[in-house]
């Protein structure tokens, strides 16, 4: 952002944004962004009972099991982070 904006409410907004998980910035990598998307998806499934039971039926698992697995997968939903280039 230009220096003019540095002193306005908008940067405060940016700081505010940065305090929440899942928000991004200009240097975010593909892996990080997608990890957040996956976690949101999993959380959404766990949080909506209808979605959980839908998946439970599709998978033939108990609802509790589905919940558990979804929660477990939040750890590294897209696999381990890729190796740093530099």
């Amino acid at each position, binding site marked *: 952002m230009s220096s*003019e904006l540095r002193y306005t409410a908008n940067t405060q907004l940016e700081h505010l944004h940065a305090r929440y998980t899942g928000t991004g910035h200009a240097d975010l990598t593909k892996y990080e962004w997608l990890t957040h998307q996956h976690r949101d998806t999993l959380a959404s499934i766990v949080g909506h009972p209808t979605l959980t039971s839908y998946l439970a039926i599709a998978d033939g698992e108990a609802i509790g099991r589905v919940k558990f697995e979804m929660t477990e997968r939040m750890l590294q939903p897209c696999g381990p982070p890729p190796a740093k280039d530099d």
Partner: protein
Amino acid sequence: MSSEEPRLVDSFTVPKDVLQEFQDMAEEEDIDPFAETASKRQIASRQSDYQNRRFKRQANESADAFKALEEGTEVEGGYQDAMRVQMLEKEEERVKRLIEDKEREAREEGQDKMDLDKTPPRAEIEEVMKDLAAASGTKRKRRWDVEEPAAGEVKAEDKGEWLKEALEEAAPKKRRSRWDATPADVGAGETPKRSRWDQTPTVVDAPMQQIIMNAPGFMHEDKHNRYLTDEELDALLPTSGYAIVTPPPGYAPMVRPPKLSATPVTEVGGFQIQESSDAAAQAAAAGLAPELPTEIPGVGSLAFFKPEDAQYFAKILKEEDETELSVDEMKERKIMRLLLKIKNGTPPVRKTALRQITDKARDFGAGPLFDKILPLLMERTLEDQERHLLVKVIDRVLYKLDDLVRPYVHKILVVIEPLLIDEDYYARVEGREIISNLSKAAGLAHMISTMRPDIDHADEYVRNTTARAFSVVASALGIPSLLPFLKAVCRSKKSWQARHTGIRIVQQIAIMMGCAVLPHLRNLVDCIAHGLQDEQQKVRTMTALGLAALAEAAAPYGIESFDNVLKPLWVGIRLHRGKSLAAFLKAIGFILPLMDPEYVAYYIKEVTIILIREFQTSDEEMKKIVLKVVQQCAATEGVTAAYIKQDILPDFFKSFWVRRMALDRRNYRQVVDTTVELAQKAGVAEIVGRIVNELKDEAEPYRKMVMETITKVVASLGASDIDERLEVRLVDGIIYSFQEQTTEDQVMLDGFGTVVNALGIRVKPYLTQIVSTILWRLNNKSAKVRQQAADLTTRLAVVIKQCGEDQLLSKLGLVLFEQLGEEYPDTLGSIIAAEGAIANVVGMTQMNPPVKDLLPRMTPILRNRHEKVQEATINLIGRIADRGAEFVPAREWMRICFELLDLLKAHKKGIRRAAVNSFGYIAKSLGPQDVLQVLLTNLRVQERQSRVCSTVAIAIVAETCGPFTCIPAILNEYRTAELNVRTGCLKALTFVFEYVGPQSAYYADSVVTMLEDALTDRDLVHRQTASVIVKHLALGVAGLGCEDSMLHLMNLVWPNCFETSPHVIGAVMDAIEAMRVTLGPGVLLSYILQGLFHPARKVREVYWRVYNSLYLGAEDALVPFYPDLGELSEGQNVFDRHPLQMFI
């Protein structure tokens, strides 16, 4: 013929008054108007003697024991040394005191009559005078009218009166004019004003010359009185029989605070006029002094430069050949330059210098840095701003240096500790922050070993500041880590000072950390508990104060931690008197509210005996504490009303409800507060019944105190407790004290209003009397009295109506109406407000005078510029427009509309708001067309505030008369080619859509074309305001099926997301957020996805910002809209969202 005419004088002189004027001007010019403020800015000159004791403190190096241990070197100047130095100081202090005592004794025995430091008693002077008079042989007493045998006269007679020699000899005696004294013949006594030309040329405000040559400070400055050098001593003393003794091992020459501002030593060679430093400063201010530069080589231009700076920064003021300097010298100069930039530079210069000094802190090293910074902070002429900046430097540097600061901890503390007792809150906070950072950098062990010697320092000032510093250390490093040390200090057997300071540390911890002491409460209490039985009275007092602070911090929890001290405290109040009793009572007062209601009654009973005894104290401090404790007792749950009524109230009223208490402001407050608190338990009737007769007391301050108490009690508890007898006395007393007041006071007015309103319908029998009082006072010749009467009317109007006394109201209304010609604006404002209050309760139809007469009378008053008048008038007019507009002809209303436009310029927001609302009411009764026309025309005026208010008024008209009446007119007006009008129209629409909310759905399509035009305008403000309209529109129509037009607007708003002007981008971001609500997050996400990974960072930054606010607004709702990115999977990373691919 010429002899008849008045002769013209052939020479003119200037009239005397003109001369006088010039003289005054010359004098005024000479006065430096900033001299006084300059001295006020200086911290040292503003502070008390106690605070300035910091200049006497001595700092020593605190060796870094940790580092020494690592390197295996011997520690020098460490804890041991510090303790030894401190012991020496104490011993010195003791010896000094002994000597003083001895001298005093000697004096008392009459061996030494004249003590130069003290004014001797009068008897002694007279005795000496008598002796002197006897010695000189003349009579001491001589009346002015008794002729004096003049020696000169006799001499002259001897020589013959008319002899020439005699005359010549006599002449110089009469004209004793010396070149350096006031010339006698100009008649200094005749000039009425002290002016400059008849004064001695010595500078008046120069410091007084020291007369007594052996004053301690003198030796260093004066050539004639300096210490003798070794050579001189060699020359003076015989060569044999004398030996030069080496200084004792622990001897350190006394380090005096740097006296950089001292006047330079001058060659003492005959008389000379002393140059005062103030004169130099004045010259510098006038730009006359070339020696104070504003441009310094290697530093650049500065904001200011003081003479003291010139001495301090002497090394960098002159040009030097840098190649000749050593590395250390270069470093020193570099640091000085940076410090000068920080201290005196303009903000940008200061900022870069601060960053540089922070970055290079470790290169410079702790030593060189602090050697330069700390003396600057001890400068006597230091000002707030400079201190703030230097403290900031220390803070930053500390952070970088980390454990390198260890050797300088004590030096830093000596400089920073005084900040902890500064009167300025921010200075205290800064001091705390530095000490906290310092303790984190140096570590607990080092802090303790550095500060330990100061704990039982001989000087109370040092102990006080050290205790505060320790409490900061405790809060920075945690109480538990400091507890063992505190325990040891509080039990110190060596000196009571150490115990005293230890307990004070605990007190300061409690004050500073508040409820954060709770987890360690028991430990802290146990730590100091034994101090209650200490043999030193000061320690006992401090312990009680410490317990009070702990209990206050812990309230309402933690009574169990105080179990151990309850007995000593309650026993203590029977044993102690005076100051320590006050402290004990204070502690009890704070512990009582923590107690269980079941037990508290017993403890209160115990303490009440003492409290009642102390009611009679003459000590002000004790009085205050006793009152506070009574208040705290009354507030506890366990104490009963009966107990208060029986045991406390009689004595309380006997000793505190006396006239004397009303005279001191602080006592007054305390007594009122305590009585109100007692009333909460004892009830209204009990308290009011006891003091109501005092309303007729002859002392006005006392009546006021009674009135204030009654007001507060009645306001919080109501008047239903008051029986008929009391009611009569109360109303009688209030009327009496209201009539008898000599200074019109808010207290009396409030009291009257509160009591009458609380009594409600019960005041009916007294109303005739009250109203006749008001009517009488409305015609008083003092404007203040009239104003107060009008204010009282405002407060009573509702009650009078409740009592059904409409007759009285209409009478009051008529009298007030006649008073509208009032010339004092404050009074006029009150009268109008009173008229408004009556109109309010009576209603427009019954109002007397009739509204159709009242309103035309108000129109000219609207032009009054006084805020109070404006506000009262506009409120009344608004009320009439709201309720009774039909009684007034339309032409009158239009006239008022034009007058109201002027009120839109008012400074007070309340007036502007009332004016804008009035437009709404008027438009409602007249129909919007005419009013709207007035307002739209007003958009052409120059003043921004007036235009803004017009737009708000338009919006209100639209709200009250329906948007369909206004939007066409606004759209039509938008076609005007004038920029102000177009912006005004847009602005008006923003408010319209903000106010009408969901109704906007009907008008969304009709404004789209206008918004298209505005959003594609070149003018930034157009796009900004249009974005605000879009925001309100979008929020208004959310869920009402206007998605098509909103999507269209979204496409027009979206390109503006790259704007950089703060207001524009703010408005655009808001509009986009509003679109999220209307269009749904999915649509917005599809816009954002385009740029999240754009190659240009500038684009990415903006898009991520929008993404973030979208994400925070609708995190869960975004899940179905994320694109399927399974094809990007590579290696271990699989990006498919498998759960979403399942289906039944």
